[in-house]
């Protein structure tokens, strides 16, 4: 087979793997020019030379000491390209790859595919004004500041130099006629384009300019190709994904299926220990497929990972995710409902709610004695215990844990002024500022159990005053401007005028598609004499206000408990 496709390969570590790849590529007769980093130990380089000595179409070019992000990488590519174009006149296309690249399909398939795209230069080349993937704040400044030192070796000096130049408003002149473009350094160019770039009479000017540009290996060819190419296909034929910090994702043995299905020609970067990948993809194969490369599936796989690293899973607090306030991307995992005062005015509100809505209904989760889990179980999802001491050690974590552990099932629970509030109403603040929370309050309803208990009145009066004080503060929090929960507050008097309507609204939110089941409302508790009880509190010098305007002699409750 006449070798019309040549490769240049940059290697610095894992030379044994690189040698395997070279053997695979050269087996089809394609010439390979290898650039070995000058800082690679001589013994390793010798080993590579020996291993490939029997292959006449493998050459080694002049070596440069490569430092990430600096000109040295461009110099290495130039040297390798020049040697390849000079020694192998039959080569029509040049493919740039690294020692950590792995061909996923036979070279012949790549050659055939390229033949179907004559004259096209495959190089990702994006105008720097439109680039959105650069990390670390350097974008256009890559081309307008001076970068005399490498970042990896002298991070501190690098940063100070950038700061100083920003302070002094340094702005380098970009040589006439070029517009900075950026993209992956793993390109595949035609001989004509590559020669035009390397033999451009202006090359000394461009080279001098790019020597001081930041990461020129991602911009030198990408910019100059715009001057010479006949047709640019702005994409890289090498599959490679970058994470949020601009580092390449690495492929391992468990990516085998993913890589195979991608139909891409080349992947980067491969972990050096990925035995299965090397065995599978470097096994001799016949060219059989003319499929188009489909990198999108792999794109999605890695985009998900980046999303997890950057945004995380909402509502999760764990050993490697502990967001500071307001950076949670969702304080809790799922929507939930908090009811205040409902169990007090309705008979068996919990039972009714769990019967009509498809959700888990707890009692007062934050009751002072113990957490009242649904069914009054001693333990609940995730291994939560009903012990009040454990819960009150970190009530907020108790809530977020519960909601995380029950993802997929809506949680409803009762809350009230008699419950644990955490330090400075920490718990209520947390829920009120959580967009997942639906908080519904019938204010003043705490007085109903007091009235029904019929205990010592002096004590009841003290307790009523305490609960009213707490609930007033709670309502103030719920009225704060920074709340994000769906909050509804009715006074008890207001609510009892027509309980059906608010219940219907709430129910619509909890179980939007099953409103038809809301036929029967829960029964109200017997409130005869409640008005007199409130009057008695007033007579004792207390001022019960939160229940609203409650008549001393109550009206009979709404005759109809049925919905229209």
């Amino acid at each position, binding site marked *: 087979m006449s070798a019309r496709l040549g490769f240049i390969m940059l290697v610095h570590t894992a030379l044994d793997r690189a040698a395997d790849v070279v053997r695979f590529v050269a087996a089809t007769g394609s010439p390979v020019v290898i650039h070995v980093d000058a800082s690679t130990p001589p013994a390793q380089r010798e080993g590579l030379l020996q291993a490939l000595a029997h292959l006449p179409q493998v050459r080694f070019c002049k070596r440069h000491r490569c430092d990430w992000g600096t000109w040295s990488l461009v110099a290495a590519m130039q040297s390798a390209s020049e040697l390849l174009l000079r020694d192998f006149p039959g080569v029509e296309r040049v493919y740039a790859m690294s020692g950590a690249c792995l061909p996923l399909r036979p070279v012949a398939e790549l050659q055939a595919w390229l033949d179907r795209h004559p004259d096209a230069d495959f190089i990702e080349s994006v105008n720097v004004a439109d680039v959105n993937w650069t990390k670390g704040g350097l974008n256009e400044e890559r081309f307008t500041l001076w970068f005399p030192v490498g970042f990896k070796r002298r991070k501190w000096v690098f940063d100070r130099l950038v700061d100083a130049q920003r302070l002094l408003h340094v702005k380098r002149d970009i040589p006439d006629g070029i517009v900075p473009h950026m993209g992956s350094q793993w390109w595949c160019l035609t001989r004509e384009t590559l020669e035009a770039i390397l033999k451009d009479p202006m090359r000394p000017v461009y080279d001098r300019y790019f020597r001081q540009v930041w990461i020129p290996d991602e911009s030198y060819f990408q910019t100059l190709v715009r001057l010479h190419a006949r047709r640019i296909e702005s994409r890289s034929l090498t599959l490679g994904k970058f994470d949020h910090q601009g580092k390449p994702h690495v492929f391992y043995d468990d990516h085998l299926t993913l890589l195979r299905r991608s139909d891409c020609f080349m992947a980067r970067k491969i972990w050096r220990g990925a035995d299965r990948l090397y065995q599978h993809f470097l096994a001799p194969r016949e060219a059989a497929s003319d499929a188009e490369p489909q990198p999108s599936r792999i794109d999605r796989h890695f985009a998900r990972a980046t999303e997890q690293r950057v945004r995380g899973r909402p509502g999760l*607090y764990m050993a*490697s995710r*502990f967001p500071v306030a307001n950076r949670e991307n969702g304080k809790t995992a799922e929507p939930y409902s908090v009811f205040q005062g409902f169990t007090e005015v309705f008979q068996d509100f919990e039972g009714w709610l769990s019967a009509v809505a498809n959700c888990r209904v707890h009692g007062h989760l934050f009751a002072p004695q113990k957490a009242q889990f649904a069914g009054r179980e001693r333990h609940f999802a995730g291994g939560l215990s009903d012990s009040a001491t454990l819960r009150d050690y970190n009530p907020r974590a108790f809530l977020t844990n519960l909601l995380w552990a029950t993802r997929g099932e809506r949680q409803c629970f009762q809350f009230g002024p008699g419950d644990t509030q955490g330090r400075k109403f920490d718990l209520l603040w947390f829920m009120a500022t959580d967009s997942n929370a639906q908080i519904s309050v019938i204010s003043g309803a705490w007085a109903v159990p007091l009235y029904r208990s019929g205990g010592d009145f002096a004590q009841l009066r003290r307790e009523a005053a305490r609960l009213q004080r707490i609930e007033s503060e709670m309502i103030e929090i719920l009225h704060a401007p920074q709340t994000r929960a769906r909050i509804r507050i009715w006074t008890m008097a207001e609510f009892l005028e027509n309980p059906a309507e608010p219940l219907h609204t709430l129910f619509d939110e909890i179980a939007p598609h099953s409103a038809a089941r809301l036929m029967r409302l829960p029964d109200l508790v017997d409130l005869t004499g409640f008005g007199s009880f409130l009057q008695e509190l007033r007579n004792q010098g207390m001022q019960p206000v939160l229940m609203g305007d409650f008549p001393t002699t109550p009206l009979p409750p709404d005759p109809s408990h049925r919905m229209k």
Partner: protein
Amino acid sequence: MGILTSYRLRLMRRRWKIRARLKGRELQPLAERTGQIGKNAILLFATLRNEKPRLAWFLQYYRALGVEHFLFVDNGSEDGSAEYLAGQPDASVWRAEASYKASRFGMDWMNGLLRRYGHGHWALTVDVDEFFLYPHCDTRPLRALTDWLDDAGLRSFGTLLLDVYPKGPVGDQPCLEGQNPLEIASWFDSGNYTITRNHRFRNLWIQGGPRARGYFADQPRAAPALNKVPLVKWHRSFVYVSSTHMLLPRGLNLTYDTLGGEKASGCLLHAKFLATLSDKVREEMARGQHYAESREYQAYASGIADRTDLWTKWSERFINWRQLEIMGLMSKGNWA
């Protein structure tokens, strides 16, 4: 304040380093094979006492992960642990007869060995009842993780210490020598952990799990810490401060994200709740002999005497790392 705190922590670090050097003198080499340690070898450091029944599985587990050399301090074992370890081709063993407590529960010895042999290596510091899990550990060796951490410029890797327990009282199903303890202690709590930040050392302080609800329900503050940083690219200037919960310099404790993202992290499965029954004891028992004097028997008996059953119907049975990752006990982060 900031400078003062840094200075104080620096003094503290120096103090622990000096202690490590002094306490290092208590170590008597029993098997010294540190010459075998290759340039980039992954090392494991552990202190133990009378843990013979657990050792075979422990070694097997970590060899399979890719640990290349083990460095053990044996604190006066009387069950043959030290001799057993000394017979392993890839282990170096030191004996320490001095007090475990006085060496800050072995940490001074560990710091001393880490300083001498850990410099420049990825070092895993664990107890013999802790089993390290990291994302993809069923398909990628430990070297893949450390290479990835190196590439990402990370020096430490955080974990949650996840207590695993059997179903039924601890003493009911003793673990045989060489048996995988996770076959018996295979249950865990999936979501009852509480976290606060320790601003002084910048680590997270995690508590909860079965130990908090089983033994510390009345005093949750005293419940054991479950945050651990067992895997560190060691530098001789580093020290562990308290067990492997935190290190100095404190930047090494920042193994978590505070802006909503998830860093990659793992779990240390903690098979503490397990009665270990060595073959020897089993033999003796079968013969019906009386050996109330024996320490082994006492340890075993105390395991049996503990009738606490940590299992609840909400306990989860351990399957693999993916299960823990879905439950949010560990994270792949961006290591896809």
